Structures are given as structure tokens and as C-alpha cells.
């Protein structure tokens, strides 16, 4: 393909009603005064970025967080309207909102749908009351079910549920029950995450991988195998390590990210990418706003990637997707045939049974998806060996 996918826009709304002990994201507790300032600041920031896409229309818009759904519908609608005004939205453009089941209502969902949001991602996490409490979630399983019903009623026909497995005290049977409850709600999309222990989180300090009360590696693998079978049986096809969807309902915003696409960003801690330049904004609301007020871009860092780094990213991300690494995209950046440049790494991946080469792609196997981190390290090693 000739053109990078995208562009997209990512808006990060950092506040949460409370902080969850497993979460590693840039988030902070909600303060109403600061929230009002942030809405105003985001509008300023978006306007300032208006020229950044050189006339390209947005394909996708993604409101992430934090808990964006806790913001008033009018505030979210206002930001969306502004973004569409500034850049335009391609016909059929995807507009996603991350939501916490406890922060939604029938009226709010209707308003959001009317404002143009067409994809809702619900942080269900679990349907087991004990585990929801352990995860620090304030919502109940019934809140999630109600939110799904109300979202359907409001006209959302593209719903995602986030589910976490490998939780403290969870055995494979419990994990399977949890997933079955999620599937019973017939979502178009499901993100299934193994619990990640962020070293700086309470969970990270409390638990260690594979040790009681966390399930053993054997148990985690059993949970994953059972989940893959259950998801396939429910018609949800895997398209990335942790993402499953009915055909045509893959998250286009994330897919673009994984193919090296462009995305603008706004909000504290948000990351953006344009044509090999990656940047992040200051994660704290105060400094982010202060920087904007002084007329500066509130950068935390900006990095201009070398062609080698861009290719490494394509491998790293592509090897996590069932579509695989698009060789033409790598060749376009590198100016050379990746089958040659990365020959030792590719050969090693084939030997290990982690990937296979098609006419156009390097495609990870199921085993390869399970070993994706090690797999991308193989490509790194062989690449470095050649320069």
C-alpha cells in the first residue's frame, strides 16, 4: 500500500472516579475545577493542531483514559464536534469511547450516540463480584449488563467488552465462567487481557507472576487455550494478541496504530505519531495546562525515529496481529527487501514455528502470538547484525 493508514485522533481524558490497584495508565482522581479547565484547554490544544494533518480527513477518533465516560455528555460531544469541524471525518469513520459501566445512564448513552460516538468500549473486567472488588472496580456485573442493554437501546451496534484473566485466586474454571458471561451479552468485540503487573502499581508490589495467589503459568496457559476456543465458537475472531471481533468489527483506530499509521493526540499523557515522529504530552494535568497557556506544545518527549527504528516497530506491532507484518510497508521505509535485511531473524521465527512467510506478509502463528515479545526481539537481533 502506498499510504500509511489513518490518520486518527486520540484524546486522553485522564480522570477516574477512583484509582484501580492494577492500573498502569496515566490517570488521576477527578477534581471538578481542574476538569473544567482541562475541557477548555483541550479545545485550545485541538485548534492549535488544526494544520497538522495537511488537509487529510480523520478516519478514526478515540476517546481514551482514564474514564472518559464519567465526563458530562455535553463536554464529550463538544470535543467531538470541534474535532470534526477542524479536520472532518471520513464517511463511516469510527468514533470510540472508553466507558466504565458505572458511569453511564440511558439518557447519557442516547446523547453520546446522537453526538456521533458509534463504538463503545466497556471496561467490564469481570463478572465475578469478588474479583471486581479485588480489582477496585466500583461497578457490579449487573451494571455492565444494564449498560450493554442501554447502549443497544441507544443505538450502539459496535460494543466492546474488556475482560481480564489470570486474577488473584482465579482458576481456569472461574476464568471460563467469567468469559462465558461476557459472551452471553453478544458483544461485537472483546478485548481479553492477561493481568499485567505494573511494577509501580499496588498489584505489582503485592503479587509476583506465577506465584500464589496468582495462577501458575500452567493455569494461565490453560485459561488462554480455553478462552481462544470459546471466543472462536462465539464467532469472535482473533486479530491481535488480546483482541477479538466479529468480521468487520475490528477496532480500526488500533489497527492503524499497529500498521504504523498516523494519529494526532491531545490530553495529558497522550501519545501521537506522524510519519516517523513520536511524541507524548506531559502526563500531569497541571503542567500540561500550564504549558498550553504559555503557548508551548506540552511535550514530555519528542523522538524522530530512524528508518531502522520504524521498521522495528512494524515488526514489533505486526507480530502481535494475525494479519502480520506487511513487508511492502517495511520495504517502503527501508528501501530494501526486508526478506533479505531481516533474513536471519525471519528464518529463526520460521524454525521456531512462530511465524510463516506469505507472498506479502510475515504472519505469526498462534504459538508466535503467545511469544510475540521474544519474536520481535529476534527481528531486532538480526537487524542489528546487518548494520
Amino acid at each position, binding site marked *: 500500500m502506498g499510504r500509511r493508514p489513518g490518520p486518527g485522533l486520540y484524546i486522553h481524558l485522564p480522570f477516574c472516579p477512583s484509582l484501580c490497584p492494577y492500573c498502569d495508565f496515566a490517570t488521576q482522581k477527578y477534581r471538578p475545577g481542574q476538569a473544567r479547565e482541562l475541557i477548555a484547554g483541550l479545545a485550545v490544544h485541538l485548534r492549535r493542531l488544526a494544520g497538522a494533518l495537511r488537509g487529510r480527513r480523520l478516519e478514526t477518533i478515540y476517546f481514551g483514559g482514564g474514564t472518559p465516560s464519567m465526563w458530562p455528555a455535553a463536554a464529550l460531544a463538544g470535543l467531538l464536534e470541534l474535532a470534526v469541524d477542524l479536520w472532518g471525518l471520513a464517511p463511516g469513520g469510527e468514533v470510540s469511547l472508553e466507558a466504565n459501566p458505572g458511569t453511564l445512564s440511558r439518557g447519557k448513552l442516547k446523547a453520546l450516540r446522537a453526538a456521533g460516538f458509534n463504538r463503545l468500549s466497556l471496561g467490564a473486567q469481570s463478572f465475578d463480584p469478588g474479583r471486581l472488588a479485588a480489582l477496585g472496580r466500583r461497578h457490579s456485573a449487573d451494571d455492565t449488563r444494564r449498560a450493554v442493554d442501554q447502549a443497544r437501546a441507544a443505538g450502539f451496534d459496535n460494543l466492546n467488552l474488556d475482560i481480564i484473566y489470570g486474577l488473584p485466586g482465579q482458576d481456569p474454571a472461574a476464568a471460563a465462567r467469567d468469559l462465558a458471561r461476557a459472551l452471553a451479552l453478544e458483544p461485537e468485540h472483546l478485548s481479553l487481557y492477561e493481568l499485567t503487573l505494573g511494577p509501580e502499581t499496588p498489584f505489582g508490589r503485592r503479587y509476583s507472576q506465577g506465584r500464589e495467589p496468582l495462577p501458575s503459568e500452567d493455569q494461565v496457559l490453560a485459561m488462554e487455550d480455553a478462552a481462544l476456543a470459546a471466543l472462536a465458537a462465539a464467532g469472535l475472531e482473533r486479530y491481535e494478541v488480546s483482541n477479538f471481533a466479529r468480521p468487520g468489527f475490528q477496532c480500526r483506530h488500533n489497527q492503524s496504530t499497529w500498521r504504523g499509521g498516523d494519529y494526532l493526540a491531545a490530553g495529558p499523557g497522550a501519545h501521537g505519531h506522524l510519519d516517523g515522529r513520536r511524541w507524548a504530552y506531559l502526563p500531569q494535568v497541571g503542567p500540561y495546562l500550564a504549558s498550553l497557556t504559555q503557548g508551548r506544545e506540552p511535550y514530555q518527549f519528542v523522538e524522530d525515529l530512524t528508518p531502522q527504528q520504524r521498521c522495528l516497530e512494524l515488526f514489533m*506491532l505486526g507480530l502481535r496481529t494475525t494479519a502480520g507484518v506487511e513487508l511492502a510497508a517495511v520495504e517502503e521505509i527501508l528501501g530494501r527487501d526486508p526478506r533479505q535485511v531481516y533474513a536471519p531473524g525471519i528464518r529463526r521465527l520460521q524454525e521456531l514455528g512462530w511465524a510463516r512467510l506469505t507472498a506479502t506478509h510475515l504472519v505469526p502463528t498462534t504459538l508466535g502470538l503467545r*511469544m510475540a515479545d521474544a519474536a520481535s526481539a529476534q527481528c531486532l537481533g538480526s537487524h542489528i547484525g546487518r548494520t
Partner: protein
Amino acid sequence: MADREHTRNFSIIAHIDHGKSTLADRLIQTCGVVGERDFKDQYLDNLYLERERGITIKSQAITLPYRAADGQEYELNLIDTPGHVDFSYEVSRALDSCEGVLLVVDASQGVEAQTLANLYLALENDLEIVPVINKIDLVSADVEATRAQITDDLGLDGDAAPAISAKDGTNIEAVLEAVVNQLPPPGGDDQAPLKALIFDAQYDPYRGTVIFVRIRDGVLRAGQSIRFMHGGAQYKVEEVGVFGAGRQPTPALVAGQVGYVLAGVKRVSDTRVGDTITHADKPAAEPLPGFRDVKPVVFSSIYPVATDDYQELAEALDKLSLNDASLTYQKDTSQALGFGFRCGFLGLLHLEVVQERLEREFGLSLILTVPSVRYKLHLVDGQTLEVENPAYYPDPASIERAEEPFIRASIMMPERYIGAVMQLCLDRRGTNSRMTYPSPGRVELSFELPLAEVIYDFYDKLKTVTQGYGSFDYEVIGYRDTDLVKLDILVNGEKVDALSSLVHRDSARPRALHAVKKLKDSIPRQQFKIAIQGAIGSTIIARSNVSAFRKDVTAKCYGGDVSRKRKLLEKQKAGKKRMKLVGNVPIPQKAFLSVLQSDTDD
């Protein structure tokens, strides 16, 4: 220049951390040698490592001009000595250059093992001893009890000891007065043939070796031809002088004086501490007594982590040895680690000092093998072999018997730790214990121990079992029969030669278990199972596995995670450079280091 009557040569001795260097600083400041602006704390410890750890590893000297209470001008030569058992010979030579010492005792800790060891050393050298009670500023200071200890344990006059705080500068004049009034002036005969004791030497990149001397008899001037009586080499003196804020050239050094000699000596190792300098044309009849050829007792191989740093390591060792005559090194090779050097050290601290200097001053990243002592092997065919490198250990069938060096260790501690320390020494094959009670509540425990057991992790263990209250000193007493085996460590069936060690048969299994466990914890999992084994010959005595990892994937990777994840990969690549490949198993540097670490934390 002061006459002999108005000269005093003295040293300060103390148990580690009792404030020796701080007192030296205060004396220097009080005598106004160094301007306040130039003054760095612990002025004499000018190697930064010494400054950082408060450990002196080379002798230093400085001349302090002092107008005493009697109205007369004195020249006080302060010789600062190394403060660690590894350097006891150097200490003894430095002390031999003095007429007296200040024995510093911490008012809160009292008499410790090195206090005693230092006292004995001073007594051996017939020195006048002035006890000084330091750290009276501490809340826990007990001056009266310390006086009693000095009187009872050391047989010195505790009541006359100046009680000072070197930190706060309290009562420093009293110390200087004691130096003037209680220490004798130096003797010596200007007319006799030259005898000058070398008590240390340092390397100056512009002038070559700076030799520190104490003139016993005769006069030494620039232009004269000199000879080292033990070394045999002859040189022409370029400059002599004394130590002020820096080196101060003088026309001559006369009997009784302490000073330096520049004579175009290229390397410090061309001089030997304890040697006697005399005139080439009118030599003394015999050298000064007490000379010993110092030999290394602890050996370890040093390898660069990146094989291409070998040349840099070679140059760094060369530079270090310019100033450190006791460091020996020769080429060594390892299948796992490539080219390196087999190095000999005076002790474990000396090893650590060299390692830190190589890493920090020269920016090298190193792997050191398990320290070893030098064994004597008596072969069936009648030959005797000295082996300190496991790589040269012969076929066990050819060995009739083996001997290993023993030390006599002296450990002082509060009485309540006696059981634990006794057990530790017995675990380390200690024999012939003796116990004395120098004062109520305190025990001095003396043990004969194999040196090999002490260089492993004895210090750490001793500190742990005595909660830091145990102090330690030792001397080598000779070789004794031992039951020696070579312990090999195998990773996936391949011998990691750098991890082989010579150990007593009884220690082989615990050591093997320790090594296997440490490796298991520090070798990263691979896509295949890794077997780790400890073996004597073909007999496996310990084993463990690093299980294959079956899942290695981050759950979430979205737009905000890309940079971090890519950087992690790039860092992993950098880390790979620091790994050594044994067969197909990458072993990180920290795995080699962890095998060396004590398991006191387990």
C-alpha cells in the same frame, strides 16, 4: 629545617571507622598547612575510592609545623597508614618509620580487634604509644569506660589520654602537645653511611615514582647515586624533599627526617616497601631489618564483559600497577569469557579496590571469577606444584596430597555473640580456638582457619551474626594438608570454565548448591529448558533447571505503549551485548557476579 630535637615522626592507628582520617584532617587544619579553601575532608585519603569508603590503602605523609606551648617550633611528620589487614606489612613498614603513634579509640565502641592488632604492631616496632579517645561528641560516648578499657585491656595510661572530638575539632591542641611531649625525638647519625627505609611509593605521571623514605642514618642529597639494598638497582637522585601541602624540595634529607626521593624510577613495582636505600659509593654494611617480599594471597581472573575491551583492560591494569606494586597479573583465557588476566591480591579488600578502580576510573565492565588461594599440590611422581587457578588443576589421580594456607584469625565481639561466631568458625573448618576476656562483656576469640574459607564470604557472615559488632584481624601462619577437589559448573552440559573453583571436599556440595541456585535465579528463561549442574569430575553433586518459557507477550500494546516497548527492545539488545554465550545459553554478567555473592540474604 628543624633539628632532631624538634622533630617528631608519628602515625595514627585505629580500628576502622574510629576516626583516624578525621583526626589527621583536624591536625593538618590546626597546624595551618592547607588553606581552608583547599581543604577537602580526609585530606590524606586522596584516592577517591579511599575517600568514599573511608579506607586508606596507601601510606601518605605530611609535615606539620607546630608552635608548642613551650614556645618552640616543631616539625611533626604525620605518616598515615593503610587501615586494613590486607595491608599489614605496609602498615608495619610505615610504623617502623616513626618513633610513636596515636592510638585512636572510639569513645562509644571502645577497644576493637584492630585496635589490639595495631597496638601489637606498634609494640613490635618499639613505638611510644599515646592513646586518644575520639568521638566524645556522640551521645553514646562513654569516656570513663573507654579510659578504663585502655588501662585494663591495652595496659596504657587511659587517664592521661586526651578526650577529643575530631569531627567537631574539640581538644585537638592536647593531641599535638602529647605528640611533642610524650613522643621521643628521632635518633640517627648524620655521619654514618646512608640508611633510608622505603615505607611506600607512589606514581607521578610527570616525575615517575615518588619514594617515601625515613632516613635512619646519613644524609641524602640530590645528585647522589643510590642503591636499593634488596632490589640491587642503582639510581641517581634528582630531587629530595619533605611533604607540606604538596611536595617541597629541600637540599637534603638528614637522619631522623621523613621525606621523599625522586630518582627516575619508572614504576612503583621497581621499588619495594621495606627496602633500604644507601649510597652506591659508600654503602651501609647491612640493610635495615624487617624486609619481606610481599606475595599475593588471593587470586581471581578478571575478564572484560565485552571481549573487545581486552586491550583496554590490559592498559588499565598496566596503569594501576604503576602505583600498586602488590597487584600481580598475567594473561588468562576462558572459553566462556575470552581473554582476561589472572590477578593476585593481598586480600579481598585489595581485590575490591582494584575492581572498583578498573570499573570507575577506566569505565570497564568486568567479570571476576571466584577468588582462590594458592594451593600446594604434592604429586605422585614427587613433584610439587603451586596452583591458584582451577584451569591448571592437574588430573586428580596424579595428586598425592594437597596443602592450603591457614591463618590465625582474631575476632573481638561482645560476649553475647560468642556462640554464633564459634559456630561460624567451626563451619569454616576452624581449629585450635582460644578465648580471652580482655574486659568484662567482651571476648577475643582466636581461631586457626583456612584462608580459602575466609576469602569466600566470611566478612559478610561475621557481620551478620554479630550484627556489625564483631571485628576481625588475621595473619597467615602457613600451609596444612587439605582434601581438595575441583568443582565444575555446567550449563546444558557445557562446562563454564570461569565458574570452576578449587574447594575443600566438604564445601563442594554447599558451594555447588549455592552456585546452581544463583544461576537458576539469574539466567533468563529461554524457549528451551536449561539444565544447570555442579560436578566433581563426572559426578553430578547439584542440579537445577531454568524452565522454558511458554508465554512471552505483553497483554496491552496500544498507541501510548509503542515508544516504551520499542525502547525496552532496544535496551534488551544492549543487555545482550553484556551476555556471555555458553553453548546456546546467554548468561548475563550478573549471573557470574551472583555466584560470587554470599547467600547471607537467604
